[in-house]
């Protein structure tokens, strides 16, 4: 892939990504916020493909844009909150403090990134980021965390059922 095409693709994904991430905060209706978040996840998957992370890109679409967002939409519809209850933001002092804090953090991090200079990219083999390569590292070097993840998911299932039961 040419250098220019990659820069164009980066901006094709990065622009809508930032726009839809901001849309999550701007949306009055939580369903619109959820759909905006789905769009953000799809754009992020495109960015992951640019970073040669094919497996993670597909997991992003299947797990995030698929499973997690369906869960969010179900809960939004289950609660069926009225619009004005959702539209109101927190008191304005908190709002301005939050925005100022976010801007300050962004300034610090971007400054640190600019100072780091950004070393070049390493060359990687053809199987970098494929299911075979990532699967091999998951089942050898990261075997214990991988098994711990399965226990974590089991605990999450049991916890979700127990917490959302009628009588706690």
């Amino acid at each position, binding site marked *: 892939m040419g250098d220019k095409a990659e820069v164009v693709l980066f901006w094709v994904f990065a622009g809508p990504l930032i726009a839809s991430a901001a849309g999550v*905060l701007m949306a009055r209706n939580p369903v619109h916020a959820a759909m905006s978040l789905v769009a953000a996840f799809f754009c992020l998957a495109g960015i992951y493909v640019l970073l040669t992370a094919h497996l993670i890109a597909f*997991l992003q679409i299947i797990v*995030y844009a698929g499973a997690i967002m369906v869960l969010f939409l179900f809960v939004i519809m289950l*609660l069926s*909150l009225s619009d004005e209850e959702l539209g109101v933001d927190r008191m304005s002092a908190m709002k301005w403090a939050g925005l100022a804090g976010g801007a300050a953090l962004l300034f610090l*991090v971007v400054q640190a990134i600019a100072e780091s200079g950004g070393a070049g*990219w390493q060359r990687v083999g053809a199987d970098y980021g494929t299911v075979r390569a990532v699967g091999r590292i998951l089942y050898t070097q990261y075997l214990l965390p991988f098994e711990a993840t399965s226990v*974590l998911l089991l605990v*999450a299932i049991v916890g979700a059922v127990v917490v959302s039961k009628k009588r706690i």
Partner: protein
Amino acid sequence: MVPVNYYLALGAVLFTIGLAGVLVKRNAIIVFMSIELMLNAANLTFLAFARQSGNLSGHAIAFFVIAVAAAEAAVGLAIIIAIYRSRGTVAVDEVTGLRDP
């Protein structure tokens, strides 16, 4: 290729948007969505550094982050439903049962 700084800056912007959402929004569901945005920003940074240094450990970490996010969403949304059942609201500044004795 696109310089690695661009990816890192994109991750920083995404994280900041998520942080602003957590601080500013009242609705607990939107706060949760903002947390998901912050987790994704961390993932993007992991993958950018993994690609930069040419090893795959960042991909394994990103995989674990996705699994933990799924577990966190399931438990968190169950808690939101339980709070809505007992209080009739999901506004994060109206649930003060632990603060007010």
